[in-house]
């Protein structure tokens, strides 16, 4: 029984976007977690996911630096909800494959925030700890991530309309 192994793998799989690499990163991260078990304070899940997340980003920096380049939160506009948005229909019509593709295409920082929030049900506080940013940044990343996801689903939906 390895606690939270599924959560660790799910995060690594979404960040590396590849089964083989996710397995390698998680194995290394779990062994490191085991070694630093004394550093465990508070709940185990956010603690473990912090280690897995850091391993993923180190791996991305070495193997896919282009994916992390050019990401900058600070230039982001205020994370306001757009009240008049046309994406509702695209969202309702999108299938599993389209949604997974759109999610995988987001920047790693938006992707991890959404995965931790929606698939792992973690609080803003835990996500802030795992991704090492302030809670305000977690909020704006979730807001922008959802916005970009909606736009990308809209674009996919428009493209498939054209082909019909």
């Amino acid at each position: 029984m390895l606690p939270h192994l599924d959560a660790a793998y799910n995060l690594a799989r979404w960040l590396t976007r590849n089964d083989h690499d996710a397995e390698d990163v998680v194995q290394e991260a779990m062994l490191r977690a085991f070694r630093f078990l004394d550093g465990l304070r508070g709940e185990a899940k956010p603690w473990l996911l912090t280690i897995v997340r850091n391993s993923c980003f180190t791996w991305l920096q070495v193997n896919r630096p282009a994916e992390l380049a050019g990401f900058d939160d600070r230039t982001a506009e205020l994370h306001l909800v757009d009240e008049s948005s046309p994406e509702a229909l695209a969202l309702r019509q999108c299938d599993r494959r389209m949604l997974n593709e759109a999610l995988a295409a987001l920047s790693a920082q938006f992707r991890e925030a959404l995965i931790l929030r929606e698939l792992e049900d973690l609080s803003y506080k835990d996500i802030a700890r795992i991704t090492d940013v302030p809670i305000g940044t977690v909020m704006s990343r979730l807001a922008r991530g959802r916005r970009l996801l909606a736009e990308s689903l809209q674009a996919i939906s428009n493209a498939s309309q054209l082909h019909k």
Partner: protein
Amino acid sequence: MTREEARRLLHAYVDGELDAAKSLELEAHLAENPAARAACERLREMSAAIRDRAEYHAAPPSLAARLRASVPAAPEKAPRRAAWPGWLKPAAAFAAVALLTWGVAILSLRPGEDERIAQEVLASHVRATLGNRMFDVASSDQHAVKPWLSARLAFSPPVADVSAHGFELQGGRLDYIGGQSVAVLVYQRRQHVIDVFVWPAQAQKAQQTLARDGFNIERFALGGMSFWLVSDLNRNELGDFARLLAGHAATP
């Protein structure tokens, strides 16, 4: 609340991260603004779409096997068997924290009939999940669970089939809450177990949401039955589930 502020807080509201005072302010704003209400609905749909359709990648069994094999190589220099408790430490720490917060939650409850029931249903849920004995009758078929429970109780609990909405019936069990035997219907949503406690009640009661560190509770009374839902599922989805069950209870 200004429109700007409402637009800024909407994500936190949908994520259940807004404090009670701000939530009330925002709800008042939503009640008056159809456009903001529509935006809130869209956010909920987006959140639900990701939860329902994004793939959850569970760890392959080969990875767990590789990890087990590598554990003795850790610098503890401990023999294979002695290394095991180390792996269990996070789980034990987690369980201790969960029990502690649960204990604190119980202590901080105000006395009173409702709070006592909240205490009892929460205790029943935690006992069942910790003991891994969730049901006396395991079946996803409502027509098997309902007669089993009816045969052992002085009433016949309504058992709704809501699998179309992603809530799978797992089975049912009997428990003793508030001085009477009650039915417990066990549903599952992804990896979350939801206990639905049902017993006869005369008065109707509007849906009410409680939270006890880590566990969410929804309650309502309708159609002659009192319903209490307990789960570690997030508040939004448990609320949706309660509304689904209320819909079924209203039109049997």
